[in-house]
Every structure is written in C-alpha cells, then in structure tokens.
C-alpha cells in the first residue's frame, strides 16, 4: 500500500467591491475575462475559457481553431454563495477523467455589504493527483515529482 502525505490546502480570502451575485457571475460565466491567457494545456493557442453554469457542467478551454480541452467539472453549483469545481489536470499536464484523481477548489461568496463581497477560496486534496501517479510508478515519492515536473515544464515555457 502506498501512503501519500496529505499536503495542506491552498487558501485565500479576498474582498471584492461588488455585490455577491455579480462576483459569482464573473467568477463562473465570466471566467474568460480574468483567467491568465498562458494557463492552458491544449495544443492550440487559447481562444476562450468556459465554465458551464450548472452542477456537472464542464470547465474547459477552446483553442483558436476550435479544439476543446477539458480541465474539470462543476461539482457544486449554488449561486450566488458557493461553487466547487474538480481540478482534473493531473500528471503530464493532461486531463484525467477519473474524479478520484482530481483535486478540487471551493469558492464561497459572503455579503459583507450591499456592494462588497468576501470571497473565500480553498484548493484541496492535492494528494489525489499523487495517488494516481504513484499507482503507475509504485513509489511513495513518485507521484508529486511527476506532477511538479509537468507544471514546471508548463511554467518554464511561458
């Protein structure tokens, strides 16, 4: 049996000077407006990032020539207060359809004032990516390097 050490979640809290409904809409339907253009995994240059606005909806990129590449799936869709998305980009910088190999991020939107929203963000379960990779390499330490290497490759070619 492999045991993969659990890595702590990534957490961030930000204040957005806009109503909760607006913040939720921009985070989801409006994702293309704020996503970094160089953060994509497809072979074609990025045309558009799409989050389908419903539970079970796909999160994907569309290239300039129309090729689509999945990133993840909406797990919880509770506008305007809560969103959970599976992050399904695993080892080798590739989409992995098995949700057991996916980490996930949760975003919660709290109304601080009529036009001020506190956004609490958490990306968790990183170890699930490692379990997927360690099954291939059968080693406790092998999962993380694989994924890090993939990210390093992508980051290095920016």
């Amino acid at each position, binding site marked *: 049996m492999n045991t993969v050490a659990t890595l702590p979640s990534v957490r961030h809290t*930000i204040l957005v000077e806009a109503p909760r409904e607006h913040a939720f809409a921009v985070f989801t339907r409006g994702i293309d407006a704020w996503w970094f253009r160089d953060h994509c995994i497809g072979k074609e240059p990025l045309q558009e990032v799409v989050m389908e606005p419903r539970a079970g909806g796909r999160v994907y990129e569309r290239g300039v020539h129309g090729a689509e590449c999945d990133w993840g799936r909406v797990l919880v869709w509770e506008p305007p207060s809560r969103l959970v998305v599976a992050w399904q980009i695993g080892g080798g910088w590739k989409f992995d359809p098995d949700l057991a190999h996916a980490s996930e991020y949760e975003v919660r939107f709290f109304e601080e004032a009529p036009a001020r929203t506190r956004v609490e963000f958490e990306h968790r379960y990183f170890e699930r990516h490692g379990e997927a990779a360690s099954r291939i390499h059968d*080693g406790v330490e092998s999962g993380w390097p694989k994924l890090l290497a993939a990210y390093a490759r992508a980051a290095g070619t920016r």
Partner: protein
Amino acid sequence: MHTNLKLRVQALGDPTRMAIFERLERGPLAVGEIARGLPVTRSAVSQHLKVLRDVGLVTSQRAANRQIYRIDADGVAGLRDYFDRFWHEALQSFKQAAEKSFKEKSR
C-alpha cells in the same frame, strides 16, 4: 517559497536535468546508474545533480561507499507553492475584472 519554486522550475528547464529528474522518479540511483544512456559525461551528471540538490529537488545519502540520489519529497511540495502563487494572482485578476465590470454596469 516562491523564489524556491522559481529556482526549481529553472533547474528543470534544462533537458538533461529533466531527464535525470525523471530517472529518479522511478527510484533512488547512484551517479553511474543515472549517467548510463545519457549523452553526457558522468561528471556532467554530477554537476547537474548538484544543481538539483541545491534547489531542493534531490537529496543524496552515502550508502556502501556510493552516493545515492533520490527525489526530495519536501522539495516537491513545491506543487502546492505553485498553486498558492497561481491562485493568489488569479484571484487578484478576478477581483479586478469583477470590480471593473460592476462599475461599468452601475454607471
């Protein structure tokens, strides 16, 4: 933290170092074993291993008179660092987009 990650990314940007790193993903190895099949000299491999060790991706240990290299499990926690930095920047971008579009809408 972020500086370390940047150094690691740079270290793996070299194709030979990436090849060495990938070999160690399969398990701990001595220099001679790592160098086998690589188109560089053994001493070049040692130099690359030093770089990987300096940035915290690889550790080494002496066993039976040989230096054995392995992936540094703490160093690769850099994945979490990557996401930490990535989301910090992405959320700032989101905040700006949300505030700008709200301002334009309520004008």
